[in-house]
């Protein structure tokens, strides 16, 4: 069974500051359910730092996290972070393949 969390209800329409995202993942990591659906509906903007922190926390989390209803703007920010990691030649975290048609992040 899964738990669906509306990010709009937690953060509002903008997700800003690494600390916010880090704190959020600390909370969801304590949830009982193993599968967590993060609903990005009505989230208009995520900062670059937040997107970076989100991906790091997402990778570390033992929960099965799935994204839903991500706007193109939010997808584009995750793509931007992905490009920056690729330029650094890093394979620690990312290749992130945002599939904005299905509104979900796919980790390769």
């Amino acid at each position: 069974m899964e738990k669906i969390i509306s990010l709009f209800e937690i953060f509002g329409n903008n997700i800003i500051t690494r600390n916010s995202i880090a704190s959020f993942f600390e909370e969801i990591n304590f949830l009982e359910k193993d599968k967590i659906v993060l609903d990005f509906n009505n989230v208009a903007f995520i900062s670059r730092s937040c997107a970076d922190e989100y991906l790091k926390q997402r990778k570390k989390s033992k929960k099965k996290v799935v994204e839903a209803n991500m706007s193109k703007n939010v997808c584009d920010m995750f793509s931007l972070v992905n490009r920056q990691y690729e330029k650094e030649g890093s394979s620690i975290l990312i290749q992130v393949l945002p599939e904005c048609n299905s509104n979900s992040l796919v980790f390769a």
Partner: protein
Amino acid sequence: MNIKINLPNNDDVKENIYALIKILDEMNSCKDNKIILDFSKVSWMPPCCIILISNKVLELKEKGLEFDWIPSSNEKVTSHMNKLGFPLGSNVDGSSYVPITHILRNNSDRKNLGRKISDLLNKIIKKIPNNINGVSYILAELSDNIEDHSEYSCASIMAQYFPGKREVEIIVFDDGMTIPGIFSKNNVSFKNDSEAIEKALSGEISTPKLYNQEKGRGYGLRTCRSLSTEDFKGEVYVFSRNGVIISKHNQEKISEIMKSPLNGTLLCVKIKLPLKDIPFYDKVE
């Protein structure tokens, strides 16, 4: 204690901040239980000065000092200061500006700063005609640095749009450790405080020993500067401890050392909005 506010009465950010630091030092050295700031001779005060004095007033009030002020004999200056929320901030925004928001550190609510910035962001993007992503990016990254690095007690932020000039001004101040202070704490070497600021603006991270954990960092200030000065053809001013770096579109960077330190970090970004949206996600590195 009465303190006369003597400023250059012009728009030059650097001149004004240099003059203001002396005033902030006087305020710090007040041994009385009341400060009266005398703005009567002030005929212009740029927003970066208003925000700095506001932050200092709040700090001193939190320590128990009483505060009062003598307004400028120039009504426009007093009206401007009131609208921008001098001194304790305001929730009432104007048609083209979001007044000073003071944010006190709240260790028990780690989402607090993010929510406050989000509110401010929502207000300013309603006032600008385009390039919402670019403005959002700059405001968000500058704000994130406050929480991530500075160990601030009070952060002060404001944003203003000048429709006649199509200019956006974003000002962020924190009373925290300063950029050189953070670098020193993390054993990052630098010759002087301006070099420390330049390293931060160039993407050097404050925790290089944790590099594997820190991949993906160092982009915030760097991209804010390039976006502001190259794509938006604007200006970025950074004052932190004794260091000053000023970057302007198509001009040589200015790097100076101040005789007296600023106890915190002030970032002032002025950008010109083009007539159309710039392809933001393509432009940012």
